[in-house]
């Protein structure tokens, strides 16, 4: 039923199931026993009618009574056991899968997050995994059980009346015909529906995140309309698949109805002819439906499989996403960084054919402070991302203390570099948790010292619960400048060997900025640091100023050196920003 490609995909997920092998076998045994128990009632019925009533063998009746009371109790006990084992396996599987996917996701390159988008990631990890679970526990197992019960029921049928048994086999293909007729339309409509729902979820996620913008532009009405359109088209797809499914079911009902009618009447005919007893007819009747139930289940599973395969595909989309940035087999631990950093002819592009960095050469001695300047979008942030190895260079190499960043263990690299990102991100949790993010074992004294450096200690103390105030959705929200200062404190706390400040103080007032810079100056003295800033006051004191333009370094040197380049880019930049005050100063000098 499942074609080769599907089997291949399922095999990929199979290793999630392996740990549950013994449980699954137990489950199998339990279910098999229960199926057998389930085969009993028709037999009991047959004996009651044929032997007891018609033949007058009344003494057996009490025995049959005891049996028919014990049967449901036994099967109920089985049922609870099965459901427990089933839930155990199913939920264990879900947990394992989600865990594995999440673990894998954390290893994936930034590109994955850019391309996939949060909404899609979520619907895969939460929704699709659940649907695969349903398939594996309740259905896959069902297949095996069904297989058994099909043959058992067939044997019973043949035993009761082989002619009618053969008739059943003749009717069998009708089911498959029905199934094959509906298979493609159902699969297509389901995958269409999934795609539409994905759209809905992605759209929703983004609009909710950007709700402030939606409101500022008074776009609520239009967002509602867009959402309605998306949902409506998903509704259409859902209805399409519902109508296909209804058609399929109607088909099976039709076939079943025909089958039952024929069997019943034929059976009665045999009774009249004296070839069968009525009890046997009834038993045959029951067994025939037990024999066809597996076929129905099987086709239904195949139907479901179509839907589940879509989920599997979507999960594999994450799992098969190549881990581009990972430790090499022979990766070494990066020893404590002294601080020598070298970019050698570094080329990089996010998208093929759109180079962002074109041959960067830069050498930084331990303890130097590097200022990266240049117009927006020239590749400053990208350079720091490469140093952190969020991406790998396309050409050239980046080394720290002589170690190529690609040759060392990622963990030892990243934990030694502190970075204050251009967008400050905070997670739900207390201020303390957020500050301790990079170094959970820091003491309170260290925590407060870091907060003091970032000029945020006082603000924190003003909040109702100080360092234990909740941030984010469950607690207070911060102004942008406050977030930035927390991010600085967080980075300072990790005591990194190399510090990267990506416009870390851009949203701060000049007073706090000056204070922070002074405090940071002490820390950064003997560390290598990279600062990206647009305000000259931050830059002038740097040991090396790197002026970038469209992904190339056009000037490097100290402030003095750069000013001496006639018509130099740096000088232009400088004169422009400092225009007023330079005139004043020149006048003052002249005067």
């Amino acid at each position, binding site marked *: 039923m499942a074609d080769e490609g599907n089997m291949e995909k399922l095999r990929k997920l199979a290793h999630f199931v392996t740990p549950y092998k013994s449980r699954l076998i137990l489950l199998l045994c339990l279910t098999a026993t229960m199926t057998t128990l389930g085969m009993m009632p028709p037999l009991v*019925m047959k004996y009651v*009618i044929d032997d007891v*009533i018609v033949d007058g063998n009344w003494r057996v009746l009490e025995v049959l009574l005891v049996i*028919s*009371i014990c049967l*449901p109790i036994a099967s109920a006990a089985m*049922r609870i056991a099965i459901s427990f084992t089933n839930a*155990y396996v199913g*939920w*264990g599987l879900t*947990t394992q899968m*989600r865990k594995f996917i*999440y673990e894998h996701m*954390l290893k994936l390159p*930034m590109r994955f997050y850019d*391309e996939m*988008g*949060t909404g899609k990631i*979520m619907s895969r990890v*939460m929704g699709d995994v659940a649907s695969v679970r349903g398939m594996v526990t309740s259905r896959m197992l069902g297949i095996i059980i069904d297989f058994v019960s099909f043959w058992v029921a067939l044997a019973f049928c043949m035993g009761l009346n082989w002619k009618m048994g053969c008739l059943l086999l003749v009717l069998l293909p009708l089911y498959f015909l029905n199934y094959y007729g509906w298979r493609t339309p159902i699969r297509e409509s389901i995958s269409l529906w999934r795609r539409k*729902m994905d759209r809905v979820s992605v759209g929703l996620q983004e609009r909710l995140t*950007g709700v402030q*913008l939606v409101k*500022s*532009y*008074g*776009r609520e009405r*239009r967002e509602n309309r867009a959402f309605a359109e998306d949902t409506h088209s998903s509704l259409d797809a859902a*209805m399409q698949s*519902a109508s296909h499914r209804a058609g399929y*079911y109607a088909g099976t*009902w*039709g076939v079943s109805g*025909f089958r039952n009618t024929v069997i019943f009447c034929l059976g009665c005919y045999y009774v009249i002819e004296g070839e069968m007893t009525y009890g046997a007819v009834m038993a045959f009747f029951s067994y025939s439906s037990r024999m066809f139930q597996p076929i129905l289940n099987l086709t239904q599973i195949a139907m479901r499989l179509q839907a589940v395969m879509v989920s599997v595909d979507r999960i594999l989309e994450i799992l098969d996403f190549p881990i581009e940035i990972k430790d090499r087999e022979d990766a070494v631990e990066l020893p404590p960084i002294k601080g020598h950093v070298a970019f050698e002819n570094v080329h990089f592009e*996010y998208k093929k054919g759109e180079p962002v960095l074109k041959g960067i050469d830069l050498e930084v001695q331990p303890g130097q402070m590097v200022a990266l*300047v240049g117009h*927006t979008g020239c590749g400053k*942030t990208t350079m720091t991302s490469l140093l952190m190895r*969020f991406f790998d260079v396309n050409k050239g190499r980046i080394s720290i203390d002589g170690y190529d960043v690609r040759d060392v263990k990622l963990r030892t690299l990243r*934990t030694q570099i502190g970075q204050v990102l251009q967008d400050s991100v905070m*997670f739900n949790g207390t201020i303390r948790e957020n500050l301790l*993010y990079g170094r*959970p074992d820091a003491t309170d004294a260290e925590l407060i010292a870091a907060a003091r450096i970032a000029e945020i200690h006082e603000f924190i103390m003003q909040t109702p619960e100080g360092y234990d105030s909740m941030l984010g*959705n469950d607690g*207070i929200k911060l102004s*942008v*400048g406050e977030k930035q200062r927390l991010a600085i404190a967080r980075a300072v706390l990790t005591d990194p060997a190399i510090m990267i400040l*990506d416009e870390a103080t851009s*949203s701060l*007032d*000049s*007073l706090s900025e000056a204070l922070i810079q002074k405090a940071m100056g002490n820390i950064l003295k003997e560390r290598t640091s990279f600062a990206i800033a647009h305000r000259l*006051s931050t830059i002038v004191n740097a040991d090396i100023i790197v002026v970038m333009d469209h992904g190339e370094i056009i000037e490097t040197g100290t*402030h003095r050196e750069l000013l*001496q380049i006639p018509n130099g880019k740096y000088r232009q*930049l400088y*004169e422009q920003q400092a225009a007023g005050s*330079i005139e004043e*100063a020149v006048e003052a*000098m002249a005067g």
Partner: protein
Amino acid sequence: MESLKRFVLLYIKPYWVRMAMVIAMATITSSYMFLLGFISKITVDEVLQLKPSGEIVSDAHRQSLIQADRRPRRDPHAAIPGLGKEVTRPKTRTEKLEWLGWIFILYLVVRSCFATINWFYTYSIAYVGQRIVFRIRLDLHEKVQKLQMTFFDRQQTGKIMARILDDVGLLQSEITTTFVETTRHVARILMGTVILLTIDVKLALLAFVVLPAYVVTYKLFQRPIANVFTRFREDYAEASGFLEERAKGIRLILSYARERREFRDFFRRLIALYRLGVKQSVLSSALGATCSVVGGVAMGLIFYFGALQVRNGMMTVGDLIYFNMSMGNLFMPLVALANVNAVLQQMLVVISRVFEVLDEEVVIRDKPDAKNLDNVRGRVAFRNVSFRYTETGDYAVRDLNFVVRPGTSVAVVGPSGAGKSTLVSLLMRLYEPSEGKIILDDYDIQDLKISSLRNHLSMVPQEPVLFSGTIAENIRYGQPDTTPEQVMDAAKAAELHDFIMTLPEKYEARVEERGSNLSGGQKQRLAFAMAVVTDPSILILDDTTSALDAKTEAKIQQTLDSLMEGRSTFVITHRISTAMRADRILVLDNGRMAGWGVHDDLLSESEVYRLLYEQQQKQKEEVADSYIEGIMAMAGQR
């Protein structure tokens, strides 16, 4: 239950025609098994003429018993009930076969009728179910769009999403089925009761004895199932929220190499889900199992007594078979009802979660007599405005009192966290002042239509928000009917045009979620272009040049100067040089006004302002000094 009633009125009632049809069909189909049972009975009694052979009870004895019982209907030799007295039972083989032929046709007709009805039924259920869910989603979305920012401050996006998509998705598969199946089951039970009573009163009464056992079982399981389910849904939303946040903050996770710990945190949440999931399935299967034990034992007993009845000649064999099939049909729905009950409990949880959102109070909404503003001159007055984000928290701004004359610009300066962004959010009416009033032209902004207010105001937020789509789509966001020329003009004004032209797809280049494939400055300028294109009466810029280099900033400043001409403008900035270009400067400190006026006055009046100014002056001097130093050094070298 209250919420269930509301739910029915709100969402099911509009589809009552379909729903009634579905229910009618459900009722009809519920008679299916009874009909088949009846056909079997006729076949057994009338065509096959099965009779119990008694060792103890002789045939003659039986005859007399039946006579004594005065129940001629039970006499297999009497006329067939329902088919008229004149028809007598077949005797010969050919007659029997002829009868069998008729029964074949009858059977086939019944079966195919039901297949058709079932088809229609399945389709209609999906129809109604999908539509109900569609409506709920729309309502939730609309509601969420209406809700004030404080709601979003409290709720994680992932959690809201889990409600709109996953929770409601659950409803979709269950709700109509549950409703309809319930009617179907009830119909079956009623029908079954009547039929059982007509077949044999004593046996029927015996069957009804088990009913209370069912009721007790329900009651026993109801609460625990609902509890577990509620907790499950909450934990599920929690996990979604967590995941969403991490997916967004991946850069942070990576840069601190926190993968392992993150992973453990998520795992902890998964384990909680796991426990609840197992509990949930075990509870509901225990309920089902208990019910089926009750039913199964009862069936066994009844079959036993039924057989005895047959032996005593109180029933025919056909009756026993008919009774048995009907009883199965009575108990099956009872078991099913137990499941329905479990599902219903879960649905109630979902429904109440839906209503929780729908009932959230919309604080910021149009008054009934809200006015539409056609033209805005641009006079803005804050009168004793105070605001705090939470009921108990500190005031974010306090006692703001100032008037902005039409067409003039105001610069807002102050330390970080002083309340600058809060002030403009209040003006946009994203939040409602706790005290005081904000007047636009001659109206309190609370008396204006929100859409009309926000159409005249445009704000560039401090942290740019972008949506996935093309660059042009993003620029057009506030004003979808903008022409490509206008889009280009806006991009030029934002100094973004040159960059866009370097991209292979130009204005059609894709912007990923939250602008993750753009640089910080590019995002900021795109947000700026978005505001410019709407040509607002009042422009609000919240620190929109912080990520820009000096050159670009200077260029944008020029554009701004022309934009600000004759337009009321609020510019939040940290740079005094920018602030000085505005007509008035508002100084905020710790939520209070610490100065209002022009630069020269503020220098003497406002302590905060003077400090900020001096600091920047000092920096400038340093810069100038180092420049001169550099130049001198150069001159010296020559």
